[in-house]
């Protein structure tokens, strides 16, 4: 037993995954302290979150739906970070992707087998260009991608707000676009659910029926495929090799004959495409349209957190995306259950990231702890 504990400690001290798990634990502890200080019972609050996630199949289904865009934007940020680029622009790329998907989904009439891929691919293409702009001006003029992508985020936001006022695209006076065609949607059984047989099925099947009450869609399958692709491209292809070399040491990469500027543009474009796919999937699977935004929705910014928690890898982003999606969905329940503010969840997430960013501190704490025994 002692040996097991010791090797676990070793893993935490030396491995990235162990460190992450430890940071998550610390995050929950700090969140508990905050709840306690605010006069709430943390055990009740966390219990409410857990019940809010696991007590009904419908809830779990919602967590998956919440997690899908976060996994995708997490992948986007992670991909760019591997090339040494900080993609703050996932937010804007997400918006541009969703706008593109909504337009293609509404204006184009095609059978479903063509319409869905066309929507996703065009969202990815436009967002790739959107991200690529930041890459290009960095490669060409040395403008830091953090600055350019933040500005591109706002341009994307206002572009969307303008687009929904276009007469043929937006519904007059509502600030919303028209709904996309049925053929562009990736929901499961959406039409069938409202038929008499569907309603009957939902009533009579406890588990499946409950799941179908949530807007089930195939987005998560796309997200998992993209996560695999990200891992594969980064670790198994010459492109990934180049991008990682540039990310770790651009001087050596240049000296070895890798085109550093092209790599920067490529990496930002791929990151943009991933965030764009996130936006597209959200429109195709959940919202079916875009609406005027008063402020950023935060999918892209949450992607930064997901990427960091997931150690900037494909599989890690999936794990962190689910964690984040679960916290976001389950966390929204504590308001009703114990009256604690939902913002506590943001404190938990913030703390986790803070500790992940301080691996040295955690390693020190653990080593000290070992000495005291």
């Amino acid at each position: 037993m002692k040996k097991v504990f010791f090797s676990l400690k070793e893993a935490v001290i030396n491995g990235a995954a162990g460190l992450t798990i430890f940071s998550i634990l610390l995050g929950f502890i700090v969140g508990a302290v905050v709840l306690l200080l605010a006069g709430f019972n943390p055990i009740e609050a966390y219990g409410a979150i857990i019940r809010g996630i696991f007590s009904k199949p419908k809830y779990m289904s919602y967590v998956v739906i919440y997690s899908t865009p976060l996994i995708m934007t997490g992948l986007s940020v992670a991909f760019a970070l591997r090339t040494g680029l900080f993609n703050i622009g996932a937010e804007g790329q997400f918006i541009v992707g969703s706008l593109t998907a909504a337009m293609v989904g509404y204006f184009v009439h095609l059978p479903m087998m063509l319409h869905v891929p066309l929507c996703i691919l065009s969202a990815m293409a436009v967002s790739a260009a959107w991200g690529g702009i930041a890459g290009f001006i960095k490669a060409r003029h040395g403008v830091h991608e953090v600055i350019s992508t933040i500005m591109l985020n706002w341009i994307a936001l206002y572009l969307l707000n303008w687009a929904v006022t276009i007469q043929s695209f937006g519904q007059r006076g509502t600030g919303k676009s028209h709904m996309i065609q049925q053929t562009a949607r990736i929901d499961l059984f959406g039409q069938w659910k409202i038929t008499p047989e569907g309603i009957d099925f939902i009533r009579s099947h406890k588990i499946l029926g409950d799941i179908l009450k949530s807007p089930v869609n195939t987005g998560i399958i796309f997200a998992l495929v993209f996560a695999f692709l990200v891992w594969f491209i980064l670790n198994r292809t010459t492109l990934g090799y180049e991008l990682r070399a540039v990310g770790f040491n651009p001087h050596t990469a240049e000296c070895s004959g890798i085109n550093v500027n092209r790599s920067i543009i490529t990496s930002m474009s791929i990151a943009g495409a991933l965030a764009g796919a996130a936006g597209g999937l959200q429109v195709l699977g959940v919202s079916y349209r875009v609406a005027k935004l008063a402020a950023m929705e935060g999918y892209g910014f949450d992607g930064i957190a997901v990427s960091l928690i997931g150690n900037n890898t494909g599989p890690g982003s999936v794990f962190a995306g689910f964690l984040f999606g679960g916290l976001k969905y389950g966390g929204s329940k504590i308001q009703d259950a114990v009256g604690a503010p939902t913002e506590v969840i943001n404190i938990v997430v913030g703390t986790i990231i803070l500790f992940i960013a301080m691996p040295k501190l955690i390693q020190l704490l653990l080593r000290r702890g070992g000495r005291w025994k």
Partner: protein
Amino acid sequence: MIDITKKFGDVVANNHISLTIHKGEVHALLGENGAGKTTLMNVLYGLYRPTTGTIRINGKAVSIRSPNVAISNGIGMVHQHFMLVEPFSVTENIILGNEPTRAGGIVDMVSAEADVMRLSQEYGLSVDPKALIEDLSVGSQQRVEILKTLYRGAEILIFDEPTAVLTPQEIQELVTIIKNLTAAGKSVIIITHKLKEIKQIADFCTIIRRGEHIDTVEVDKVSEEELASMMVGRQVSFKVDKPEQQAGAAVLEIKNLRVVDKRGIAAVNGLNLQLKKGEILGIAGVDGNGQTELIEALTGLARVQAGSIQVNGQELANQTPGTIRTNHKVGHIPEDRQKRGLVFEFDVAENLILSSYNTSRFSTFFILLRAAIYSNAEKLIKLFDIRPANAKITAKSLSGGNQQKMIIAREVSSNPDILIAAQPTRGLDVGAIEYVHQTLVEQRNRGKAVLLISFELDEIMNVSDRIAVIYEGRIVGEIKAKEADEQQLGRLMAGCSL
């Protein structure tokens, strides 16, 4: 230091090493890269705790838990990489962490500066107390580091490879400073693998090999060769063996080359040079006479302003580094191996394919062939004796000498027609240097052309077939290596005509 053992996990870095330093002596600590010299000194300076063993200072056993304890016991360390705050003044750096204050916690700069002045005059360490660190030369920065330890009352000064970053003149100045220190009763420990310097300044020398204490000798009673063989554990030849060989046709032809440096000044200005098959051409010169810019122009890293560079009759000026490598078959051992030569976070196998990852050997249709990549690494690790023999550890965890072997393995195995070797032995120990030189000579023997750029005149004279001297961006003289003598080269390097 008595019977010191330091283990990192299962690795024994120091195995029962004892070391005695007397007042007023210069004691050199000699060993190959990774032999355990720095570990031993880090134990003394309180950066590591010894696994077993005791340290006595003036007969009293002390437990050095941290550098602060070491400092209060009169131990000071001058690190290889300086620990200075660049935008601070000399005085501010020296008093940092130990500031003299007046009432109200205000730093007493006037008395601090006076103290610094007094110390610097006492030991002949000339620095301006008000100058900013970032404006100082490397040699002056090192003097600030020495002053810092003296200001804290150091009686024993540890120097970690102090000459690695200095110019020959600065090395001479350092020798004088060390003599002043010992004359004033201070003790000096020098970590080094440069035999010449040991002969020049040290009284005693302790040799460490693979964590073991080999011997402690009086420096006057041993020769450089004896020191070298004790350090490496076998006979080392300083002379590079190379058979007579007639150089072949010209492969590289540089005409009227002009390259500007970062400040826009023509660092290479009207340079002409010819490199032939089967020869090693050494470029001798003092640092900063256009060597870096010449290398960067040849490898496509810097823009060529004017002139031509032809390889086998084909122009390569202003082509990309990739084209120059693959199409013109120019290999490059970079001057700054950590910055340009390797990717720290990549493992050895990944580093070994940096210049060939997109050839059909290691990839098909953009997919990396991992089996081929790792078997290539196994082969090169064996062939070039890269230690530890593990293709899957990161480049960061290799010692400097083995990192360099890895780079050389990569460049030589890509079978270039021209190999540009820039400072290929900087920071390496004699064993590794011997190995690098043999590899360069093998390339030459196989009929390839080697361009060797080095600031070490001994290296240039030993390895080259022909020597060209660079001064202010042009070649000011060419001599056959056999006919060259140091005096004559030195005059050329200083800009005098023959």
